[in-house]
C-alpha cells in the first residue's frame, strides 16, 4: 500500500518532492512538542492544485494526511500520529502580493512569519503577530494555531490579522474564504479555520492585514527582587489606563540562560524582570513611559532601564524570544505549559506554579505574556528519564487545572494538538465537545484530515 501511495504522490508532485527513506521519515516524526508521529510518506507540493490532488489521493486510498510548516508546533499538531502522509508546505513559500493601498499582503503558507515583516519593512509596513518562534515558524502554521506572541496585548492574535484564505478542503476542493474586503456575507469560515490546528483543511493562500510601522518605540527593562511585585505592576499599569504594546515577564532561571546566550544586559541577580514596550506616535510617549516607570517604582521595582537605541531594543527582544532555545543551557528537555488566567490572578497563580514545582521536585522557570495573563511555565526534565517524564506530564496537567480554577483556560496560543486532549474536559462539557465534533463533521466527514487532534476520541473516530 505504501509503495502505491508513493508512486502516486510522485506522479502528482514529482519524484524529488516525495520523501520516504527511513532517515527522511525519521525527521518528520517529531516537532517541537514531546510527542512522536509515524509518517508513511512526506510530500512537498508547490501549488494548491497539487495539494488538492494529494488530498483526493489520500481520500481514495483511505490514508490520513497532516499539513506541516516548519514543525515548530508545541502541542503535536504537525505530527502524523495515525500514520499517513505529511504534506510539507515549505516549498510554497512565495509572497504573492503586497498591496499597500489596501493594507493587505497575500502569501503562501510556507512563508516564514518574520520574512513577511522583513519584506514589508522597507515599505514602512509590517505584519503584527510576532510569536517568539517567528524566525522559523511559517504563516500557515500560525494560522493553524492562531499564534500569539508578545505584541498581542495591543495588536491581537493571528486571527485578528487574517482577512481571507484559499483552502483545500478535506474533500479536496479549493475554496476561497473571505478576501481583501471585510464582513464577507455568511458564516465567518475564515475565523473558524484560524486556530483549527489543521483539522478542517489546508490553507494554500493567506490574505493578511499589514500595518504601518510605528513611528516610535519605547522599550523598558524593569528589574524586580520579588515576582509578586512584578505581577502587581502589570495590573497597576492597566488600571492606570495605559495599554502598552507588550508586557512580558521572565524569572531568574530564564534570565540566566538568556543572558548567557545573548548578552543583552539582563540581570543575573534579580528574581525577575518585566519587558514593557510602548509603540506609536512620538507625542506623549515620553510622558507615558515616565508614568509607567513611576508605577513600577511604586510597586518596588529595583531598577528601570530604557533602551536608548533600536539596537539595544533588538537585543532585548532577541533575548526574550530566544528564551525557549536558551533553556537548553540548563536542561535537555522542557514541557511548556500554555495556560491563561485573568491578569489580576497572576501573582497568586505564579506562586501556585512554583509550589507545584516544589511538590513534584521539578524546576519550573517562567517566561510569559504577563499583559494578557498567558503563562509559560517551562517544566524542565531529561527525556531519557522516563519516570521524571511521567511526573512532568502530571505536573503539566495540574498546572492547567490551576489555570482553569483561576478563571482561565488550558491553552492561550500553542493549541490542543495531541498534548492537551486529556485537558479538554477541564474547559468543555460533553455538549460543547459534541458541538466541536459537529464542526469537524461538516468539514471532514471522512475523518482523514489531521486525525487524533483536538477532540477526545469517541466512536472510534
Amino acid at each position, binding site marked *: 500500500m505504501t509503495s502505491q501511495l508513493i508512486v502516486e504522490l510522485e506522479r502528482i508532485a514529482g519524484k524529488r518532492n516525495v520523501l520516504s527513506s527511513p532517515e527522511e521519515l525519521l525527521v518528520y516524526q517529531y516537532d517541537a512538542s514531546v510527542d512522536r508521529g509515524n509518517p508513511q510518506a512526506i510530500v512537498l507540493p508547490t501549488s494548491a492544485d497539487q495539494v488538492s490532488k494529494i488530498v483526493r489521493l489520500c481520500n481514495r486510498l483511505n490514508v490520513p494526511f497532516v499539513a506541516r510548516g516548519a514543525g515548530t508546533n508545541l502541542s503535536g499538531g504537525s505530527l502524523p500520529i495515525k500514520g499517513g502522509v505529511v504534506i510539507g508546505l515549505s516549498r510554497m513559500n512565495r509572497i504573492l502580493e503586497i498591496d499597500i493601498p489596501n493594507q493587505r499582503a497575500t502569501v503562501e503558507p510556507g512563508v516564514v512569519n518574520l520574512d513577511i515583516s522583513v519584506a514589508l519593512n522597507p515599505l514602512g509596513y509590517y505584519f503584527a503577530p510576532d510569536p517568539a518562534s517567528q524566525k522559523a515558524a511559517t504563516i500557515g502554521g500560525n494560522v493553524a494555531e492562531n499564534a500569539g506572541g508578545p505584541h498581542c496585548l495591543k495588536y491581537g492574535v493571528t486571527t485578528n490579522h487574517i482577512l481571507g484564505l484559499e483552502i483545500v478542503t478535506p474533500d479536496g476542493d479549493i475554496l476561497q474564504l473571505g478576501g481583501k474586503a471585510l464582513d464577507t456575507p*455568511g458564516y465567518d469560515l475564515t*475565523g473558524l479555520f484560524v486556530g483549527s490546528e489543521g483539522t478542517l483543511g489546508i490553507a494554500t493562500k493567506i490574505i493578511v492585514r499589514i500595518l504601518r510601522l510605528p513611528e516610535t518605540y519605547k522599550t523598558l527593562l524593569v528589574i524586580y527582587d520579588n515576582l509578586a511585585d512584578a505581577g502587581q505592576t502589570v495590573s497597576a499599569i492597566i488600571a492606570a489606563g495605559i495599554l502598552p504594546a507588550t508586557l512580558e515577564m521572565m524569572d531568574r532561571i530564564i534570565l540566566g540562560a538568556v543572558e548567557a546566550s545573548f548578552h543583552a544586559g539582563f540581570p543575573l541577580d534579580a528574581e525577575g524582570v518585566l519587558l514593557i514596550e510602548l509603540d506609536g*506616535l512620538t507625542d506623549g510617549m515620553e510622558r507615558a513611559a515616565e508614568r509607567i516607570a513611576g508605577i513600577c517604582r511604586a510597586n518596588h521595582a529595583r531598577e528601570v532601564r530604557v533602551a536608548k537605541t533600536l539596537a539595544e531594543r533588538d537585543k532585548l527582544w532577541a533575548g526574550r524570544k530566544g528564551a525557549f532555545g536558551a533553556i537548553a543551557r540548563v536542561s535537555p528537555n522542557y514541557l511548556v505549559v500554555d495556560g*491563561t488566567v485573568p491578569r489580576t490572578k497572576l501573582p497568586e497563580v505564579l506562586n501556585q506554579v512554583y509550589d507545584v514545582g516544589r511538590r513534584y521536585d521539578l524546576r519550573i522557570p517562567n517566561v510569559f505574556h504577563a499583559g494578557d495573563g498567558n503563562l509559560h511555565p517551562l517544566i524542565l526534565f531529561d527525556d531519557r528519564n522516563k519516570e521524571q517524564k511521567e511526573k512532568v506530564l502530571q505536573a503539566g496537567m495540574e498546572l492547567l487545572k490551576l489555570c482553569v480554577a483561576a478563571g*482561565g*483556560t488550558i491553552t492561550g496560543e500553542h493549541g490542543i494538538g495531541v498534548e492537551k486532549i486529556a485537558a479538554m474536559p477541564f474547559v468543555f462539557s460533553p455538549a460543547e465537545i459534541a*458541538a*466541536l465534533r459537529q464542526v469537524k463533521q461538516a*468539514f471532514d466527514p471522512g475523518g482523514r484530515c489531521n486525525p487524533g487532534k483536538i477532540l477526545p476520541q469517541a466512536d472510534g473516530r
Partner: protein
Amino acid sequence: MTILDGNSIADQLRQIVGEKYFSSDGLAPYALDGLTPRWVVSPGSPEQISSILSLANREGLAVLPRGNGTKFALAGLPRAADLVMSLNRFNRIVDYDAPNLTVTVEAGVTLSELKRVVAVQGNLIPLDPPFANATLGGIIATNGSGPKRLAYGSARDIVLGMRAVLPTGAQVRFGGKVVKNVAGYDMTRLLIGSWGTLGVITEMTFRLLPRPEAESSVLAIFPSLDQASGASGALFASQLLPSAVELVNGAGYKYVEVEAESIGLAGDYILAIDFEGFDEAVKRQVRDVTALCSKEGAKEVISVEGDRQERLWSALTDFHRGVSANNSAVVGLKSSVPISQVHGLIALSEKTAAQNGLECALIAHAGSGIIYTFFRVVSGNTQTLVQVIRDVQFAAEKAGGEAVVEWAPTEFKKQVPVWGEPQPSWSLMRRLKAEFDPKGILNPGRFVGGI
C-alpha cells in the same frame, strides 16, 4: 410527528415560560416580510430557551429570535415565522471586571446601558454601531459595527466568549474571559454574525479598553469626490492613527442631524475624522490632518470638540435613521470592498443613480472599505431601482467585495439577491447549518444560500 395542533403547542409554550410571558394575539408589531407569527414568548432562562427549541424541533416550528427589533427587518425573506422568541428578559450585567478589562452581559442588555455602566469605571466598550437601544445579542448576531471599527475592529475582535443555546436545545459556553484562548474551534467567531441561524446567544463577554485621555474631531469639506478620496488615501498612508474616517456625500450630509455648519452642501463631500489617545498625540494629529486636508483641496477644515463632537458622531453613526426618517421607500445597501475601491464604487453609485432619477445618499467607513448607500426614487420607478441595485452589486463584486441589500420593502427583496452573488463557500456553510440545525428551525431562509 404529532399533528400540528395550535392549542397544544400554545399550552406547551405557556407551560414553559408562564402565562405572563406568552402571547398569541396583537402580534402585528412582530410581523416580518408579510408573515405574522402565531406566538411570541419571552423566556427567562437558558433552560426555558432549551425547552422551547426542543418543542420547535418536535413540532417543526420556525423560530425567530429577537432583541429590540432594530434590525429585525434586515436579511432575506423567512420561509416561515411561527414563533418569535424575545430575549428582553435577559437584561443583567453578569460580571463587570474593570481591573481585567472585561464585562459579561446577557443578550438583552442594550448598548447604551452597557456604555453607561462601563463609563463609571473609566472604561469604554469598543463598539459603536447604530441604534442606541439595540441589544448586544442582536448587535453581535448581526455583526453590527460603526465608524470606530477602524481603530477597534469589529465584534470578532472584541467578543471573548459567549453562552448560547443550540438549535437542538444544548446549552453551551465557548471562550471565556481571557483574550488568549485557542482551546478547540473558534465557535465564538462562528456564532458572531450568524444571524440567529446556528444558535440563540444568551450571554457575551466583551473586552474593554481604558478611556482615552483625549479625543478631538475634524470636519473637512471638499468640492469633489476625487479630492476627498485623495485626502483619505493620503491620511491612511501617513503615520497618523485616526479612530474613525467617515466620507459622506452632499446628498447624505443633509440628513446628518447636526446644527448647520457653514457648508455648501450640494455636490460637496465631507470627511469626518476622529482622533483618540494621549493629549499630545491628539493635538499633533489634528494639526497634521488639517494641513493634509487643506493640501488635498479642502474648502474648509473645522475643528469639532465636546458636545458638538458627540452630536456629530451620534448623527454619523445613526445615518440610516436620518436618511429613512421621512421615507420608508428607501433601499439601503451595505457594500464592502477593498479600501482602494471605495472611491470607484461611490462614483459609480452616484452616476447610475443620477442617470436613473434616484437620489443617492451615502456614508463610507473610508478606512474599512464599507459603504452604506441609500437610494430613493425621485423621478424613476421601482424597476429602475432594481436595475441600479444590481449594477452596484455587480460593481462591488468586480471590485473584490460584496453588496448586501440591508433595508428594502418586502416586494423589493423578492427581486434582488439580498446577500449578493452565491459563493462556492456557501455549500460549506450549508453543511454547518445542517449539522447544527437539521430541521432548520432557526430563522429559516433568512441567511445566505437559503440557510
